[in-house]
């Protein structure tokens, strides 16, 4: 927890970018609309298994040399699926989950082309990180949502 103040200062700076990333910008691009449609389609599979989709989504951009890391606060006892999708042009999208120290945790991976998901049931409540990455050098727009049960 010693790094928290620094982390939060950085977070403040990053939040300047959040207006673009949260999907609340005034104009939504065609790529964002397509990515959101894809991810909702993917999350539908989890919804059918009783997961609730958290209302809200996050847009961002990733390329081979630029992944996006998002902080989430999770509750032990719940199961989560983090789902991400991009436009159909993009291949090899990935999502991974890490603990509050940045170490990878054991999660259930799913990845197929422009869609990916990670299923995770935390043993401890608290901070985790979700990393979105892709192998293509061309930047791609993604949409992230999560479900819980």
């Amino acid at each position, binding site marked *: 927890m010693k790094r928290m103040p620094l982390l939060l200062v*950085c*977070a403040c700076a990053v939040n300047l970018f959040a207006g673009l990333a949260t999907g609340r910008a005034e104009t939504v691009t065609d790529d964002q609309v397509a990515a959101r449609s894809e991810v909702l389609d993917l999350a539908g599979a989890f919804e059918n298994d009783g*997961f609730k989709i958290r209302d809200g989504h996050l847009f961002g951009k990733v390329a081979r040399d630029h992944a996006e890391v998002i902080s989430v606060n999770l509750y032990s*006892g*719940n199961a989560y699926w983090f789902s991400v999708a991009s436009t159909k042009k993009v291949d090899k999208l990935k999502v991974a989950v890490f603990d509050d120290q*940045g170490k990878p945790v054991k999660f259930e991976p799913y990845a197929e082309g422009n869609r990916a998901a990670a299923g995770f049931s935390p043993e401890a409540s608290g*901070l985790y990180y979700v990393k979105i990455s892709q192998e293509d050098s061309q930047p791609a727009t993604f949409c992230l949502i999560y479900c819980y049960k």
Partner: protein
Amino acid sequence: MSDLCNRLLSSVLPCLLAASALAQTEQPSSPVPALAPEEVQHALYTDVMTVPTPGEVFAAIDKGGKPNWSSQYRPPTSFNSTSRAQVALNLGTLIADGFIAVAAKDGQQVKNIGRDVLTLAKKLSVSDSVLARSKSITQFAENGAWPQLDEELAATQNEVKQALEQNRDADLITLVSVGGWIRGTEVVTGLLLQNYNADDAKLLRQPALVAYLRSKLDQVNPKLRDDKAVGKVSQQLEAVEKMVSFPADHVPSAEEVRSLNGLVANIAKQISNIQ
């Protein structure tokens, strides 16, 4: 022990079942490298991903048995403050109350709270977002469609926040989130005091979340920061952060839960009573 097994099964099985639906295309897992320190430092913090809804913590505690949700209702209070900051804080607590009513499967209480939410939303000029949802909320409440109601409430909360952002009242979003988290924590600790168990006590570990909310409160515009209610909440969140900052392997004792409950209940009371 069997309770623990049940809880593990209930949390892991859904993931496995959902994964099985996708198993045909699932890729083998390969070692994932740890995040680089700069990736951790530059991680994105945003309300829509970083701040859980009250429904998420209530879903977690609901697995531990049959919580007496209605025991956590608050008596209706008349709220006359004209402070927009205090209205936003109260709106957050009221939305959390809505989740409690849904968890209790109490249609009348959902409708009562819906009316109160609308009253406060009007004071913040975001009632259109609530009105758009109120008809379906009423219908779902009358039909006992609880999962849909839960989703509708979450959507209402999100739309209120989006409307605040569109109105250039983004600072008030933080206050709605803070109010919701305070009230949610009051309820979880209240239920734990009625029926203490270690698994649910571990839900209280949320140091980064409170640190995030505190940092956001520090960033609100000076006029809002000087508001009496915001000042009081801000001051006491420091103590709350200490209480929810414990190692992952620590289980808060009943006494620790009682202390946290006393503190957050007091904050919630102050949010609704300061004139």
